[in-house]
């Protein structure tokens, strides 16, 4: 009898953990949406800021965030995935691999402002890309690189060795085995990594502070070399530099809601793809 009592109380605690997590999620989304929706209008979404950031819309910032996030994932995904594939499939197991894995996990702990300064020193100044979408995307790419590598590695390690051997035993080359068998099976895990890193890249403020984000530019970015407004920096700047807090706090709420919605959209798409992949493979 006592055994079941422990089980029921154990399961109840787990249920409580789940509930508190969801309540907090609900609280954040509720507050942001209620206060954000007051400001949202078609004009808010399609026009630039006016009257010293107290009126008008945040269109350039929205576009900026989309470019920066996609640029970051475009840069980090191939590089990170290739690194994970090399570490799991090609490189000899042993000390070097563990050391590299250790280094990568560790970089997730480096304060994001350091990535910003690294981006400033390397991409903006050394490579001469200047403060631009390119520098910002590359810097954000490096911020999410460790996340993509770790998640992809976990996914690749989880692919059972037996189906690798099955493929090899049919005369498939190593690359054919990776491309046709290992990657599709590991895709759901890799997509989890992408989802987490999309949220991280879109929401980072410090890395783009010195490398891409402008407080105010007229019109839309002309090329990947022009700087760009970005939602996270816009929210931070409004909340800290704005001299008209009453109007600007409302705009900050609106921008937070749009940023939240934008990130949820991209993540939902990735989650949908992962679900579809899972169903196909049973």
């Amino acid at each position: 009898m006592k055994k079941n009592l422990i089980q029921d109380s154990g399961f109840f605690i787990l249920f409580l953990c789940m509930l508190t997590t969801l309540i907090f999620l609900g609280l954040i989304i509720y507050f942001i949406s209620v206060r954000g929706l007051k400001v949202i209008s078609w004009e808010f979404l399609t026009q630039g800021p006016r009257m010293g950031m107290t009126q008008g819309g945040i269109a350039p910032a929205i576009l900026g965030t989309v470019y920066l996030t996609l640029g970051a994932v475009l840069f980090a995904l191939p590089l990170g995935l290739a690194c994970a594939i090399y570490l799991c499939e090609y490189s000899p197991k042993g000390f070097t691999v563990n050391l590299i894995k250790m280094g990568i996990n560790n970089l997730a702990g480096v304060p994001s402002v350091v990535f910003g300064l690294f981006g400033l020193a390397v991409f903006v100044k050394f490579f001469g890309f200047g403060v631009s979408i390119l520098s910002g995307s590359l810097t954000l790419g490096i911020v999410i690189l460790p996340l993509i590598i770790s998640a992809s590695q976990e996914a690749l390690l989880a692919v059972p060795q037996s189906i690798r051997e099955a493929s090899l035993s049919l005369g498939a080359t190593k690359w054919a085995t990776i491309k046709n068998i290992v990657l599709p099976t590991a895709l759901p895990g890799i997509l989890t990594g992408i989802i987490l890193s999309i949220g991280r890249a879109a929401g980072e403020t410090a890395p783009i502070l010195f490398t891409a984000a402008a407080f105010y530019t007229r019109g839309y970015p002309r090329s990947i070399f022009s700087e760009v407004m970005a939602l996270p920096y816009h929210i931070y700047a409004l909340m800290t530099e704005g001299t008209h807090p009453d109007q600007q706090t409302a705009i900050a709420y609106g921008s937070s809601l749009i940023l939240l919605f934008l990130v949820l959209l991209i993540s939902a798409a990735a989650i949908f793809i992962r679900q579809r992949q899972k169903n196909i493979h049973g």
Partner: protein
Amino acid sequence: MDSKVKIKAEGVNFFYARSQALKDINLDIYENQVTAIIGPSGCGKSTFIRLLNRMNELLPHTNITGRISLDGRDIFEDSVDAVQIRKRVGMVFQKPNPFPKSIFENISYGIKVNGIKDKTFIEEKVEASLKKAALWQEVRDRLSDSALKLSGGQQQRLCIARCLAVESEVILFDEPCASLDPISTAKIEELITELKKDYTIVIVTHNMQQAARVSDYTAFFLMGELIEFGRTQDIFTAPKDKRTEDYITGRFG
């Protein structure tokens, strides 16, 4: 009755890092015959069979001396690509390992990977292989279902069909029925005797009765050495070496 030698092992030694798994193995595998390899667990029989299609190369720190020839050519020559060897020497593993794909894709995978793209040819090949593997009747109308939904016995026959689709000349069975029920095991054994006409078969097994029923030749391994090799009737009725006799009569192992 002795036909041509398909695979010949001469003076083969195999090392995992520092420990020696196989000592001075000399063995002939005859074409279109079933050769069974028996012995207690850890005697090196699985290690030996995985040498024949160079699967052991995947493990780090392994080393091999001596010569293994397929149709006369040494399979470890530098110019020989392991991929070609594995195409000609198929393998069915102890635990069925179908790909997490549909039944059709499982079979067609091997064909496509070896560069064949003609759709109708692939479809015919898939049907022929499934028929040869005695699975066609059970799956003909649900080829797009996921292979993971099949039973253990069906999955193992699917793996066999996969090898047939790649036109392997030799099929290695690494304790194929270890995780199967008696009915599926019987089906697999029937299938092996059927396949003997077109393929050379090597089967590693714990099950003495299975070896006696299915194989033409039997090799007895102990502690990494080949103790005795000969026709299956001779080995089971009049073993020359005392250790073989003890093992067969179940006194140890």
